[in-house]
């Protein structure tokens, strides 16, 4: 049975609408350039959609807001002292395996490693690290079934706190080996999705979020940036496009029609794109929305691996 979601008619509006997020971030542009922060900023600059962001924060239920503040408190340990003696890395491949095993031990669900690419950096930021260890952590699907309510918003923040603890602990362990490492989670000056794709953790779905084999889109992403020499993973083809081209679940269920049926050119790259101007206000009104990731067939627990096998078997040849 189709779930009923809050009406797309919003009880708030602008007297003068901000500049379109789609325009700022290059919808239809054919030249490669970095993304610009417009919402969910780090406080470094006034964002075009800052009013909506403050509004979103203040209408959030106390528990969600409180968990967000607690997460910020945890993040003070995102960087810290580095051991004076550096453990040399003789075999980068073996070290990668060790670091991945460590991340899993610390609570990560899936881990991948890649170089820190331009695509992952916003305009005006310049983190000085060589590579990224990207971590995924699943959310509780039973709680996320309550998307658009406080309950799902609380689960999202709980997952963020858990993944923050994981990447902080991982960064501390790397620093204890004498290498620079800094943990990045929610609200950071870093685009986690392009890094996760480069690290072979999944592909971009029609709904603009990462789809990974194990959890679909029912997870959160965080990253540790480091200079430690590590073998890097390669992007994977898990047949996400095969699914998204034909599937219309998220496009149909999105109350504000923010999800299109075709890929679009954005800053020189053809990809799935979500209409920011339609998505963000509804997102703010519904405790972080999440309808598209919840209804995605891949997000159903345990379904991913079987779905992948089925999609690949349908490919010609």
């Amino acid at each position, binding site marked *: 049975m189709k779930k009923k979601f809050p009406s797309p008619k919003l009880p708030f509006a602008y007297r003068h609408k901000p500049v379109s997020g789609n325009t700022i971030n290059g919808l239809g542009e054919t030249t490669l350039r970095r993304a610009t922060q417009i919402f969910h900023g780090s406080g470094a600059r006034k964002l075009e959609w800052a009013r909506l962001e403050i509004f979103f924060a203040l209408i959030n239920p106390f528990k969600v807001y409180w968990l967000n503040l607690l997460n910020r408190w945890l993040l*003070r340990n995102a960087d810290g002292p580095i051991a004076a003696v550096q453990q040399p890395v003789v075999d980068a491949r073996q070290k990668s395996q060790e670091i991945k095993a460590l991340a899993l031990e610390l609570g990560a669900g899936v881990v991948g490693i890649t170089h820190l690419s331009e695509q992952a950096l916003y305009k005006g930021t310049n983190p000085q690290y060589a590579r990224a260890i990207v971590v995924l952590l699943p959310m509780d699907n039973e709680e996320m079934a309550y998307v658009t309510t406080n309950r799902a918003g609380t689960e999202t923040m709980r997952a963020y706190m858990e993944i923050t603890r994981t990447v902080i602990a991982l960064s501390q362990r790397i620093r204890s080996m004498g290498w620079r490492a800094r943990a990045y989670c929610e609200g950071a000056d870093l685009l986690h999705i392009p890094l996760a794709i480069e690290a072979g953790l999944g592909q971009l779905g029609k709904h603009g979020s990462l789809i990974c084999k194990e959890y679909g889109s029912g997870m959160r992403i965080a990253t540790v940036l480091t200079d430690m020499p590590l073998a890097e993973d390669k992007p994977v083809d898990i047949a996400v496009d095969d699914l998204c081209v034909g599937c219309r679940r998220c496009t149909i269920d999105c109350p504000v029609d923010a999800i299109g049926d075709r890929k679009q050119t954005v800053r020189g790259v053809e990809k799935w794109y979500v209409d920011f101007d339609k998505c963000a206000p509804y997102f703010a009104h519904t405790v972080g929305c999440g309808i598209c990731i919840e209804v995605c067939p891949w997000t159903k627990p345990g379904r991913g691996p079987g779905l992948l096998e089925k999609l690949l078997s349908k490919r010609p040849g």
Partner: protein
Amino acid sequence: MASFEEQFYLEDPTRLQALWRDVKLLWWLAVRALMWMSKGVLVRRVYRKAQVSGEPLLLEDQFPD
């Protein structure tokens, strides 16, 4: 304006620097908690009224430049 990262992420701080960072962060968090409890109460009240009346709340009225 410095970002959250620039303000509170310290590479290799001394004990005193770490302590001062913690104090500044606690202040930063307290300001936000107080904002939710003061300005937030007003915004949520107006927001509820807008939901009932059908007359949309104008964001510029709540958050002037």
